[in-house]
């Protein structure tokens, strides 16, 4: 392929430089996998096994049954069975427990009289979403308990309490396992910051070492230089993509309902976007440190926070939604989860592909515009 010798020589030079640094090459291929394994195993948003302390001041069969319903569910684990109030606050402060349950002394008697008895639940609010989830689990367990009390009472007294049962069903992720959305999400975040950071020093490095002057005074055109720099990192990104995909399938066993071909097409475009973003940073800044730090700040944290990785974009605040919409990862996130879990394809997600293409085109034209072949 000698369609363009100047482009080819930049491309080959970049490849050689990558290939010569064996440690770099090995890490470029392995690090995304390591990250994937660490995150896939470690980052669960399932709220399970919440360490719980119980202070049962009643100690009756009924209070024990209530406690057992809480602690026997898979959501709570009994950490301490206390005999007085004071340790609860301390254990919460130290983060040893996340929930303290206090049952009053007259629990069973009040209920036997047909009255309402209060149970206090102290929840650690440092993680608001987890606090809300813990609360909601407790309310559900409590509701069940009440329902049984009421029906027993109703049978005994002839009074009836209306009841609406809500049958819940979750589509697309019927087991409601967080790994099923986290692992595809990681494909999106990793393929955003990783190629961008690799590309972020491709040009600035030559600026710092001074070899950029060779480019300035060579006949190479700007687009040839940019393309030659871009392609090797794009290629690494594609290899990463395939490996991450295989990992999601074989190690994490995430359901894949869509078309692999479509996902690959989308990933190719997306990698073009993230690589050209990194290259743009490399062209914009004068020092490697600045280019690297700014690329990290612009890609790593936003990819996790605003792309919809943890929460849906439509329940974010206006400022964060704005950040989400100017972030390419958001559009790919929607697409990837749709392909994995919903089995949808081009007919639904063509606008996402279009937006990604526009981003890539925008970044590349900025690259060309900012890469001036002159000093200063």
């Amino acid at each position, binding site marked *: 392929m000698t369609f363009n010798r100047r482009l080819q020589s930049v491309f080959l030079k970049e490849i050689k430089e990558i290939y010569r640094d064996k*440690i770099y090459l090995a890490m470029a291929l392995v690090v995304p996998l390591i990250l994937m394994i*660490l995150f896939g195993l470690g980052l669960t948003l399932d709220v399970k096994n919440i360490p719980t302390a119980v202070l049962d001041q009643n100690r009756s069969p009924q209070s024990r049954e209530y406690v057992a319903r809480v602690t026997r569910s898979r959501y709570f684990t009994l950490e301490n069975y206390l005999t007085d109030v004071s340790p609860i*606050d301390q254990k919460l402060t130290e983060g040893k427990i996340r929930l303290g349950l206090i049952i009053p002394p007259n629990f069973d008697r009040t209920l036997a009289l047909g009255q309402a008895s209060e149970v206090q639940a102290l*929840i650690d609010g440092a993680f608001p979403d987890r606090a809300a989830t813990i609360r909601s689990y407790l309310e559900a367990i*409590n509701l069940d308990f009440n329902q049984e009390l009421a029906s027993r009472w109703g049978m005994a007294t002839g009074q009836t309490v209306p009841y609406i049962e809500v049958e819940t069903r979750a589509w697309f*992720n019927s087991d409601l396992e*967080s790994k099923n959305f986290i692992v595809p999400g990681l494909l999106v975040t990793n393929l955003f910051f990783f190629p961008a950071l690799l590309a972020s020093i491709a040009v600035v490095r030559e600026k710092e070492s001074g070899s950029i002057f060779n480019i300035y005074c060579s006949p190479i055109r700007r687009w040839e230089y940019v393309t030659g720099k871009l392609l090797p990192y794009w290629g690494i990104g594609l290899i990463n993509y395939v490996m991450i995909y295989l990992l999601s399938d074989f190690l994490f066993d995430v359901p894949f309902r869509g078309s692999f071909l479509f996902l690959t097409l989308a990933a190719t475009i997306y990698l073009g976007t993230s690589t050209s973003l990194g290259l743009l940073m490399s062209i914009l800044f004068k020092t490697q440190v600045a280019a690297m730090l700014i690329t990290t700040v612009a890609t790593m944290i936003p990819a996790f926070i605003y792309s919809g990785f943890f929460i849906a974009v439509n329940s974010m605040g206006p400022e964060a939604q704005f950040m989400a919409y100017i972030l390419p990862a958001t559009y790919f996130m929607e697409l990837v989860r749709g392909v994995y879990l*919903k089995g949808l394809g081009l007919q639904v997600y063509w606008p996402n592909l279009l937006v990604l293409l526009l981003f890539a085109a925008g970044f590349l034209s900025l690259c060309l515009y900012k890469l001036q072949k002159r000093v200063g």
Partner: protein
Amino acid sequence: MHQRLAAMLRKEYLQFFRDRPLIYIVLYVFIIEIYVAGTGFNIEVRNYPTAVYDRDNTQWSVQLAEKFRMPYFRVTHLVHSDPEMEALLDEGTVSLILVIPYGFARDLAEKNHAEVQAISDGTLSNTALLAMGYASQIAQEFALELGERLGRVVPGTEHLWPQVQLKPRVAYNPNQKAEWFASLIELFSVITLVAILLPAAAMVREKERGTIEQLLVTPITPVEIMLAKVISMASIVLVASALSLFLVIYPIFGLPWRGDLLLYTVATALYVFSATGVGLLIATVCRTLPQTILFLLMVIPPILFLSGSWSPEEALPTGMRMVTYLSPLKYYLTIAYGILLKGAGFRQLWQHFVGLTGLGLLLFGCCAFRFRRHFG
């Protein structure tokens, strides 16, 4: 020693402040980024986009549907057929569909018991779980209200049958303000990023350019070189995090003045010391900046997301839990949350202080050792 250290410090500050984009980006992440993350980031269920599929179409079913309102739910669509429902969920337009079956009102009137369905988009399983929990509560409250209206239950007294009233109290963050959580997490993430990245990059740059050799032939010792990097970094991070606390987190998000700020400053300085140690250790292992970037990519995201910021300790597999003891952020997170949110003092947190200091010393010792071996 003082003179040499002072000269070295002066050089570090000069180098940092000369790189204008670097200053802007540090200011940006510590002020604007924290603000955006704090306002926008809402992991709770708020305004959950919802559709109603009312097949019963009676007074009661309409009343039940009306109960699905802000702040938890935002009903945006009324559905009239199954395909319509599927399309809404597929495209992610709504995340929950309330299906009220035909015969709902009749069942409730005759049998005192009716069923409805809540079908949710399980893609983001944690919010789906919460939303379904809220749906059950709303339905049950409606049933009770109906019971009162029909005279099956005496109005105003839920005390006609026995019942456990759950009184949840969320400690430390009673209104479950996500702003506090999100802005603090963001602050800790940003501190981590800057404190690991900058010194690592600065050190490798000296290696790449060979200026480190020049430093080594001067009377300055390796420990002094490292100390200069740590002190300059720590002071920059401390000033920057003070900016974000006093310009954003306290005044705008109204975090209560609970903690001992002096203790917090000490903890942050210790943390920056440890984090800088991580960065410098990486720099002693790597030869080139590209290698360093890859190493940082392998180390930083796990530190940021697996140290208990997003998923608490109890959600990790045991093996991973052991590994997180090597992450300085783990200790700092407990300390900083403890001080700023819970108002804890040194007495409750001393173990974590010991852990943080120990880890910092260990990292620093490793650096010094590698440094000597390399150049001594």
